[in-house]
């Protein structure tokens, strides 16, 4: 249904039920706004920046929550609305820590952006500021309430993604702030470290904890610094340098990493292929031996955190496989070191990840080898990598396309690439399971049933004379539905893929933020479509690859032959598998 409205005196037809903000955007107007970033997901209407005049309403209305109606006349640029928006911003600024030059959100700060748009005057209002709560105890996320505008996006996102939200408003009035219960550190809370909150924060109140300094220090100390990049990274790094969302920039990324001084540039897709070998073997073994089923994937550290906190009784269902970058790190500090004749202690492994939870994961005590060396030493998010590239003076768009290093772990399959999107691990596993059980490659190669962004995807396959029931989900709110069934003994699946972030790693907390304000050239509905566009970039890279199945990766085959023996061998277990431990949600 369409309704007729006027904006700035011009006639438009817009969808009924949309908000003024959305309708105006569709008509070519971007109303300065802060608090509502996507329809339905946040309906706070609390920042009061997007005020416009609208007939049929008393006074000004917040366009982010006010629905259009037939015959409505909207005035965005009336002096009254312009002044009101400016005052709202000026009041917010009067309670905001204004060290914008040093703030790492500078460039992507929506408050700074609307301050410019609305013409906020310097020091318009001044006074006492709300008490600051600062928390940088986790390896993943920094919370600085002095930058918070209380829009509530983080609270909404945490709740909508994971059901049982960790963040909430505390106290009231001028003393209000956002924190985990009890204003505990995120470190002591049931936070999954997924960073979804970071990816929606309009200001610098929630930031990724940077590890650039660690990498710098390793380089300075003369360590053998190796970098690996997760599948999803290539699909989004370009966004930081003006490429349209969904542009894979694999070649330029590799070129940039070389110029940043990394000795070796590898693709974590190799680790993903290795994971498939181990995980598929583990699954088939569980099925054959009557082991604990369903087996659940373990690639997503946010999900592992969730399982340990909320479903400790189901930890036996979680695959013992380490995540791909941890496996790759373990191999780098064993087989690679051996091959290259380097002391593993001199190797420094950096993972470029779409993920903030990986920062936490790499510090887990279970992720160390016998010598006490961590598999991975530093994890940088996509945004941190972009920061490093920018500060080095590299003009990303002018870089040539280069190839990953080819030695030892340079080969990777398309199956490894699609790990970055929900359903990808499942599909990669199915390609290999099909081969093992049927004795031949799956002709169609792909398994479309497990693709897409539905809350829960399920499929059944007749393989090797038996039926394999699988399910795929992402976001802990969705996962809990499947997990409750497992707990109740009602689950019909043998294998479940669970990713922490809704949509998988392409929507990880370490990915570039997607905001209309900063993406003037993107589609109007970009906040709804960016995940699919990033996913498409991965699927097309899979298609372009001649190698489509993990088990056909010759370097993987060589690795087993020359070093590990066979999947799930004793050495493989030692290096590539891990264990889990129940934990209290709140740790005093």
């Amino acid at each position, binding site marked *: 249904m369409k309704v007729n409205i006027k904006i700035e005196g011009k006639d438009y037809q817009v969808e009924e039920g949309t908000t003024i903000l959305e309708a105006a955007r569709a008509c070519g107007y971007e109303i300065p706004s802060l608090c509502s970033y996507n329809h339905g997901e946040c*309906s*706070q*209407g*609390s*920042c*009061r920046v997007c*005020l416009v005049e609208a007939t049929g309403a008393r*006074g*000004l209305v*917040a366009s982010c*929550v*006010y*629905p259009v109606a037939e015959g409505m006349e909207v005035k965005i640029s009336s002096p*009254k609305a312009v002044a*009101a928006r400016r*005052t*709202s911003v000026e*009041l*917010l600024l*009067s*309670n905001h820590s204004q060290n914008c030059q040093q703030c790492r959100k500078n460039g992507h700060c929506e408050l700074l952006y609307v301050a410019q748009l609305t013409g906020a005057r310097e020091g318009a*209002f001044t*006074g*006492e500021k709300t008490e600051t709560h600062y928390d940088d105890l986790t390896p993943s996320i920094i919370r600085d309430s002095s930058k918070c*505008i*209380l829009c509530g996006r983080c609270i909404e996102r945490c709740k909508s993604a994971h059901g049982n939200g960790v963040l909430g*408003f505390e*106290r*009231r*009035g*001028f*003393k*209000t702030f956002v924190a985990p219960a009890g204003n505990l550190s995120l470190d002591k809370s049931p936070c999954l470290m997924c960073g979804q909150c970071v990816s929606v924060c309009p200001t610098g109140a929630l930031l990724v904890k940077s590890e650039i300094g660690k990498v710098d220090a390793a380089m300075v100390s003369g360590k053998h610094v190796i970098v690996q990049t997760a599948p999803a990274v290539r699909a989004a790094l370009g966004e930081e340098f003006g490429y349209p969302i969904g542009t894979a920039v694999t070649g330029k990324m590799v070129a940039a990493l070389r110029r940043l001084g990394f000795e070796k540039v590898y693709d974590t897709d190799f680790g993903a292929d290795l994971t498939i070998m181990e995980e598929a073997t583990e699954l088939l073994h569980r099925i054959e031996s009557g082991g604990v089923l369903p087996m659940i994937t373990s690639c997503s550290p946010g999900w592992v955190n969730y399982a340990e906190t909320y479903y400790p009784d189901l930890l036996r269902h979680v695959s013992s496989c380490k995540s791909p970058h941890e496996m790759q790190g373990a191999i780098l500090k064993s087989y690679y070191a051996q091959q290259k004749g380097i002391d593993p202690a001199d190797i420094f492994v950096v993972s470029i990840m779409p993920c903030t939870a990986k920062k936490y994961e790499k510090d887990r005590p279970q992720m160390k080898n016998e010598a006490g060396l961590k598999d991975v030493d530093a994890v940088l998010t996509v945004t941190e990598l972009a920061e490093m590239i920018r500060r080095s003076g590299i003009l990303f768009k002018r870089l040539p396309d280069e190839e990953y290093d080819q030695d030892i772990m340079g080969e990777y399959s398309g199956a490894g690439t699609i790990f970055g999107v929900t359903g990808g691990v499942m599909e990669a596993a199915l390609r290999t399971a099909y081969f093992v059980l049927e004795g031949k490659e799956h002709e169609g190669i792909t398994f479309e049933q497990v693709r897409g962004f539905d809350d829960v995807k399920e499929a059944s396959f007749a393989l090797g004379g038996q039926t394999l029931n699988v399910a795929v989900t992402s976001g802990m709110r969705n996962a809990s539905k499947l997990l409750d069934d497992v707990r109740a003994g009602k689950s019909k699946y043998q294998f479940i893929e669970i990713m922490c972030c809704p949509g998988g790693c392409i929507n990880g907390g370490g990915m570039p933020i997607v905001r209309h304000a900063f993406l003037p050239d993107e589609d109007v509905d970009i906040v709804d479509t960016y995940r699919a566009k990033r996913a498409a970039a991965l699927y097309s890279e899979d298609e372009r690859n001649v190698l489509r199945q993990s088990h056909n990766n010759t370097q993987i085959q060589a690795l087993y032959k020359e070093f590990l023996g066979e999947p799930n061998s004793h050495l493989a277990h030692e290096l590539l598998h891990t264990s889990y431990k129940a934990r209290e949600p709140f740790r005093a």
Partner: protein
Amino acid sequence: MYRSAEELQKSIATYTRELDEKFNGEDGKRYVMLCGGTGCMAANSMGLKEKLESYIEKYGIADRVGIRMVGCFGMCSQGPFVRIFPENTLYRLVKEEDIEEIVFDDLLNGKVVDRLVYEDPATGEKIRKMEDIPFYKKQKRIALHGCGVIDPNRIEEALGCGGYQGLMKALTMDRADVIKAVLDSGLRGRGGGGFPTGRKWQFAYNQDSDEKYVVCNGDEGDPGAFMDRSALEDNPLGVIEGMAIAGYAIGARDGYFYIRAEYPRAVERIKNTIAKAEELGLLGDDILGTGFSFHAHLRLGAGAFVCGEETALLNSIMGLRGMPRARPPFPAVSGLWGKPTIVNNVETLASVPYIFREGVEEFTKYGTERSKGTKVFCLGGKVVNVGLVEIPMGTTLRELIFDIGGGIQDGKRFKAIQTGGPSGGCLTEEDLDTPIDFDNMVAAGSMMGSGGAIVMDEDNCMVDVAKFYMGFICDESCGKCSPCRIGTKRMLEILNRITSGAGTMQDFDDLEEIAAACKTNSLCALGQTSANPILSTIAHFRDEYIAHIQDKKCPAKVCKDLITYTIDPDKCRKCSMCSRACPMETIHGQPGKTVFEIDQSNCIKCGMCLASCKFDAISID
């Protein structure tokens, strides 16, 4: 358990007769009525009751005298009261030691105790009967029907006093006709906004939904206002009846009372009355065999002023932080648990039974063109008669303050009346002859509000008053939207600067700008009206602000940082009282030898010296 209206009417006839006999003496007994309102209870009504009982026992007249504890009499500044029937003699400001005299002289010997009878401060005339006192003359009790008459703990008395007649009438009508009657009555929301009640009901009625709800807003939180508390405490059945009528009209089977936890007695009364009504079949399934089912539930507020805002209130019932949400959707479309819901104030619901019991015309007899019926006010501040009054709309402020209120205390000059609490504004001399109704109050720059009416005299500093309200709102802002959360804080800071002598004209401009922004930018009514006390005091008393800022003077001599206490050496009798009273020990002199002098560097302006001086030697500048 009553199964039909006829059955109930039969019992009611008995209850009415029994109640009447307590007033007209037909049962051959005399009745002593005590005010059980919170004011009088605090002033020892219970103590009086115990004394009465023991002296009645002592003089052996227990079989001839009954004691009844009823609801608030309204004239709180004259309490506690003892009222005796059938003569209808009112004793006021009664102390325990007066009781024996009342029992002996009046109850035993039929002689009025003259000294305890109300005396008109203007004429000195003794007025024996309550209804002859000017305070009561211009009042009309519709919402407070039964208050001060019935024993609120006895549902029989409520029924005997017209209770449930309105509901029984409504249940014989079509639901649409019930709504039409409320529309025709012109009843508007008594919580402050003045939205036509009938229209609210109509919206909810029009919604097609399997579940709907009626919510009674009893989160009265304006400082100095307790209209709703009285209605809930003193005639709980009347409010329940109003809620049931609303439920019938819109098609709701459940109603929720939301009452602030600070009103334990109101909570207890509503809880007990609901239980009793359920037991009697006056609430529950198939009420009086009419097929109409209605259940009343109780929820407590937990200490947040903002929950008086309807969407915040609904969030609170739903177990959330009491933060308002944007409208639309309005609660009538999507309220409690997403279902159509009407939220009506206590006083609004308490007024509804009257419309059906007495008829629409009887209700519209009172009031102005666009505001019908009556309004309850809590008259407070510097007025002589502090208390609870219910007046027909259209009564002027002058009548309210000077006739009913008895004028200003200590013969001081009237300066302003603050209505609408922290959301309202000040009205002055020039508004005194304005007939009180929703639209006139807004036109005059204030609002009706829930009914707080604080009278101020020449000794009140209007900047200080604005600061008081701003401090309140700043504490009670939910913190959700930025104009209210930060704007009220900034305004409070500016007012603090101005009253401490550090204000600048830039501050003054900022104050007006932020105030305007709060009005247009805030999410809910609390924020939108938060600046009203400032805007209206600026409108009427701009000079006072300027005096604080430019002359660093507080004309009303209230703001401590802007006043100086000095001792007039000509008047000082060297008695040393001031010096001894001074907590700072900063008044120096030798008793009987030298005049005393205040060392200004240590003076904290506490005023103890002024109070202690018997010779009027200390002045404030």
